[in-house]
């Protein structure tokens, strides 16, 4: 989503790097106080993006099943005072605190990742990944090609969705029944949609490759860019601030080791 907030202005590389460090630190949180620091940090980031909080909640919906499942698993893997017991299943105080800990952890992780994707255009993102992975080209990894593939894949998602819609309509017009029947019938009903979709994807890929070759496209080396990524003061501020937060997390871990 386009915008002009502080987070939007940050360099995509800085955002990716900070996100990686953030993820590491989220797993370094040992107690609720350090988790609270991370949560506060998350809320601050979300507020800075100036994108409505509802959008972030919607991003959680996608992984709702994962959140619930891991939450429930953790609920029964705790030590501490036993509150309720049935057969092999034990509900403990430790389990309940684990439950909340894990749920908060996954939720804020997802929300901060969404903050990255919401404030960075896909092209900037792949561009940044390409730059960050550049050292790997020393080991003969085709970084530019990988980034190009990612860009193309992202670019064609909406096209494919539209195509799927069209083909589905065409088959429905011929009486294909995709809304009823059991799971096997439904999977079978998808064949008339999937085959044309594959065929046209291959055709499209072929056309695209041809068009790129006609314009003498050849990979990474000596290729200049239209948009050059620059680190700026904004990134420095973000870096310093995040560093302070992360030190805070370490301190909280050290000073309140038993606060679980």
């Amino acid at each position, binding site marked *: 989503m386009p915008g002009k907030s502080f987070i939007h202005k940050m360099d995509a590389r800085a955002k990716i790097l900070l996100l990686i460090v953030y993820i590491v630190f989220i797993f370094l949180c040992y107690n609720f106080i350090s988790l609270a620091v991370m949560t506060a940090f998350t809320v601050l980031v979300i507020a800075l993006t100036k994108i409505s909080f509802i959008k972030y909640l919607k991003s959680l919906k996608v992984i709702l099943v994962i959140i619930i499942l891991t939450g429930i698993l953790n609920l029964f893997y705790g030590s501490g005072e036993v509150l309720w017991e049935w057969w092999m299943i034990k509900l403990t105080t430790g389990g309940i605190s684990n439950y909340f800990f894990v749920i908060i952890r996954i939720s804020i992780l997802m929300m901060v990742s969404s903050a990255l994707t919401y404030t960075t255009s896909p092209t900037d993102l792949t561009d940044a990944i390409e730059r960050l992975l550049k050292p790997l080209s020393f080991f003969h990894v085709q970084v530019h090609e990988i980034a190009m593939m990612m860009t193309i894949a992202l670019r064609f998602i909406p096209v494919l969705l539209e195509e799927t819609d069209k083909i589905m309509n*065409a088959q429905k017009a011929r*009486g*294909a029944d995709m809304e009823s029947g059991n799971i096997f019938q439904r999977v079978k009903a998808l064949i008339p949609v999937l*085959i*044309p979709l594959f065929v046209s994807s291959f055709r499209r890929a072929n056309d695209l490759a041809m068009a790129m070759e006609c314009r003498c496209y050849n990979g990474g080396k000596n290729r200049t860019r239209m948009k050059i990524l620059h680190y700026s003061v904004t990134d420095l501020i973000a870096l310093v601030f995040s560093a302070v937060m992360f030190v805070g997390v370490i301190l909280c871990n050290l000073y309140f080791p038993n606060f679980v």
Partner: protein
Amino acid sequence: MSVVRAENIRFVYGGGTSFEKTALDDVNFEIEEGEFVGIIGHTGSGKSTLVQLLNGLIRPTEGKIYINGKDIWEEPKKIREVRFKVGMVFQYPEYQLFEETVYKDISFGPKNMGLEQDEIDKRVRSAAEFTGLREDQLESSPFELSGGEKRRAAIAGVIAMDPDVLILDEPTAGLDPLGRDALLSQIVDYHKVRKNTVLLVSHSMEDIARIADRILVMSKGKKWMLDTTHNVFSRGKELENIGLRVPQITKIMMMLRQKGINVDPTVLTVEQGFNEIVNYLS
């Protein structure tokens, strides 16, 4: 009784969101059985939305559609039966082919209707004949056919369902001139033999002028006019105002008339125009 009747149709895309867009607004019309109706309109005038509404792929936001006098959304569970009655050929239909052989692909529709094997076979063969596919092509893979043949196969797949109303959305787009004329005359022949109703969306005024009995003109989501081909194309100036035009030959005759030459300005085809001018000159 009219075979297709639309009553106060309104259709809104993305209702309730900020992308809300009214594609059709208060559209009313009736089409009689056995008519050949052309649908024209500028890009974005709502033609495609309209034809999708007619065979129940989308549901009107307001208003009702009657096929053979029956409201198609009366029983939403039976909407599939409406799709068998109203056959729809989309733009670039060749991209919907999927079976191993052309024969199997054409029989996909009739099979979904639950017909007997003999009946399916009969329909597949007659549909292939109507669209000019050769007998030996039926057993080849649809992906081996040429572009024009693929399109014929796809159209045959809809014709094989023997619908009461056949809708074609720009069936000749992207074909070469010869292929275009051949396909159009096959559609006309089919219409003459089966005597069913055909609705044809096209951007080519020449094609429409040659084959349609009546024309439905859409403009900005509204019905602008539904009248005989002759009457519609006699309003050249107004048509140009909504981004359409009259056939080239009609335009020439209108201009000749303005110059004071005594010819009929309402001719629609090149042959008629030729005769008019020859008559005048001799």
